[in-house]
């Protein structure tokens, strides 16, 4: 199971880095924020990203994908973490598309996946119902008869939920756990965009007896619980890869600052206390890099290892993102807390990523449970 990138993967990383640094630097996120952009991302940028194939890196070729593997996708996500790029890549092309891939029937996959692969269709997974990630607790319900399902409930913290054209709503039904593909303008579906601290997008949904044909239920009448868990783990690892990029970027900027900033007649990077703190961060970054690469490789090569590694990755990246961004602000000193510097954008995105798909408490508990204690 590879823990080093091969040449094609390195190439993908380099081209994505070049593209993103040029076309979607942190300044682009600032602009979206300052203009209170209603979509929450640049549509033309997303078109370009999709054009380059980023929305279908891991999809099987049968559905219009490149089948290039998750280690490859991780290269792209890491770079989007470095630039804090807002796009439907994670919510639609990773989380949404893998939910359909695992839970959908063959015809549903053929119907949706190729359009997600081209970026033409954006989807969002509506799962959480309270302020803490708890995939086992679903209050949302669906009443099914032979032809229709009537879905009622409330969803929160749905990433890209305000802009996605198709919502994948998780609900309890007579078959177990159901996932319903609901087009954005279905009657009874209310979407409330939430303005989050990271200047990215999320929404709260209210479903008042939303009625859809039963054919919109993913997987026919199968219980979707296991499929959902698999999709979530892929999402957790993908998000961890993005967070790793975020951490690396903010840490590199901090180390660079330590080399240029003078205090008391010396470069602050020469102060041993700061050196040791930076070195400890570097050590943790090395561990996290191994964990993320292993997790992504396992998706392709050793699926049985995925649940444990996904929780390992998300728990550690959560903690590292908190630590690294706090140190970045502290080591930048006064200017670190001004909005003019971009450090604050990393700090804020880190907090949202930390809550998404499970905080450290959730994943440490899950790791222990999966380990048999």
């Amino acid at each position, binding site marked *: 199971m590879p823990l080093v990138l091969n040449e094609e993967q390195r190439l993908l990383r380099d081209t994505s880095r070049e593209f993103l640094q040029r076309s979607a630097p942190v300044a682009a996120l600032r602009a979206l924020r300052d203009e209170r952009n209603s979509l929450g991302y640049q549509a033309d940028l997303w078109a370009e990203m999709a054009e380059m194939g980023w929305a279908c890196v891991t999809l099987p070729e049968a559905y219009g994908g490149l089948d290039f593997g998750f280690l490859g996708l991780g290269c792209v996500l890491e770079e989007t973490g470095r630039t804090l790029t807002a796009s439907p890549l994670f919510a639609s092309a990773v989380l949404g598309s893998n939910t359909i891939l695992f839970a959908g029937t063959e015809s549903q996959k053929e119907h949706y996946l190729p359009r997600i692969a081209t970026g033409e269709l954006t989807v969002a997974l509506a799962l959480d119902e309270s*302020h803490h990630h708890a995939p086992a607790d679903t209050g949302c319900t669906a009443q099914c008869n032979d032809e229709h399902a009537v879905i009622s409930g409330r969803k*929160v913290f749905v990433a890209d939920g305000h802009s996605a054209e198709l919502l994948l709503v998780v609900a309890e039904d007579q078959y177990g756990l159901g996932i319903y593909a609901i087009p954005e303008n279905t009657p009874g579906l209310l979407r409330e965009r939430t*303005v*989050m601290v990271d200047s990215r997008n999320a929404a709260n949904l209210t479903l008042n007896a939303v009625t859809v044909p039963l054919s919109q239920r993913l997987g026919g009448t199968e219980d979707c619980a296991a499929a959902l868990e698999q999709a979530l783990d892929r999402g957790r690892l993908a998000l961890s890869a993005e967070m790793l990029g975020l951490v690396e970027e903010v840490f590199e900027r901090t180390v660079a600052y330590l080399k240029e900033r003078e205090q008391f007649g010396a470069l602050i990077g020469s102060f041993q206390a700061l050196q040791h703190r930076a070195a400890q961060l570097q050590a943790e970054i090395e561990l996290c890099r191994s964990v993320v690469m292993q997790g992504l490789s396992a998706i392709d090569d050793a699926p049985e290892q995925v649940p444990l590694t996904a929780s390992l990755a998300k728990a550690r990246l959560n903690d590292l993102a908190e630590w690294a961004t706090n140190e970045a602000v*502290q080591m930048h*000193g*006064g200017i670190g*807390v001004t*909005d003019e510097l971009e*450090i604050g954008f990393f700090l804020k995105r880190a907090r949202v990523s930390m809550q998404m798909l499970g905080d450290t408490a959730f994943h440490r508990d899950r790791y222990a449970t999966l380990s048999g204690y």
Partner: protein
Amino acid sequence: MTHSSATADAFRQEVRDWLEENCPQSQRQPAVAADQFWGGRSGSFPSEDARLWYERMRDKGWVAPEWPREYGGAALDAQQARIIKQEMKRINARTPLYGLGLWMLGPALLEYGNTSQKEQHLPAIVKAETRWAQGYSEPGAGSDLASLQCRAEEHDDHFLVNGSKIWTTAADRCDWIFCLVRTSTEGKKQEGISFLLIDMHSPGVSTTPIELISGESEFCQTFFDNVKVPRENLVGELNKGWSVAKALLVHERKLMAEIGSDSPRKVVSPREAAEQYLQKDDTGKLTNTELRSQLADYDMQMHAIGLTHMRCFEERQAGVRSPAPLVMKYLGTEAEKTKSELLLKIMGSRGLGWEGDSFTDEELDTLRLWAMSKAMTIAGGSSEIQLNVIAKSVLELPQE
């Protein structure tokens, strides 16, 4: 100076009675930013009760209880002042007047100012006629205060000031600013610094606001372009401003250490947040054992810090020296950061809202305060500086 506990008890009763009679009910609840009265020519009372409350306290001399009567104080001792504070806290009485003049410049003038400076400025502070800004930090100087560049050239009867100051809180609404300026480049960096009082309305003074990661802020950058400052506005000796500044820093650190208990916004405590945002099992325990453990850790830390504040006070009263006061700024501001991160963890996605109706005011405030908390371990002597000071002054470790 010390009082027998009987005298103290009598005084406490007196304070309690007076407050009961004079503090309007509306002034007996925590003040959010909009409820605060900062005085100054551009300041206004948030409400008629606020005016009444301020005026009664001012007339009683309790706006600055330890200051001499001729400057608007009540000439009380530290224990009495503390009793007033405690009794006000007991009924949640609001601080009638906020301001750096009251908290920082006043004590410094009492120690270092000459009679005419005291007469000019202290009563004006108590009467809320002048609001003061602080001009210490400069862009690029950070914790290294002694390296400041803002220059004041000596002329016959005035100084000519050029340069800029950063983090000048609410400078756009202040009347005066107290500044550290460089009056000489000879000798060590700390030498050649003077402490100057500058009228913000002087020609050549301008300010621009700074936006922070927590959003718009009260902080400004203030520019001095050939500003003429009369020589009598020099506090202490020429080139000896460092000692005035150091005395002031002590007040600032105390302020920062206590800031958690005196925050301008209504702050939810992690324990309250846990009641609201976490679940309990049927024995009354929080089901999220990780957050329960972190909450207990935080509560224990604050419990210990609170006891240490009390110990510092008792030691001061008893004339006992200990290292405790020197560690409080470090501990207090770090705990404030811990608290904010813990609140976010407890609130989960509800603690991540930036604006809009999807979140309650309390949630939005929590997030903004979280962002603000990052500045606490930087401003007023960073945590690194605090640790350096402990290593040097308490542990007497060798310096390089």
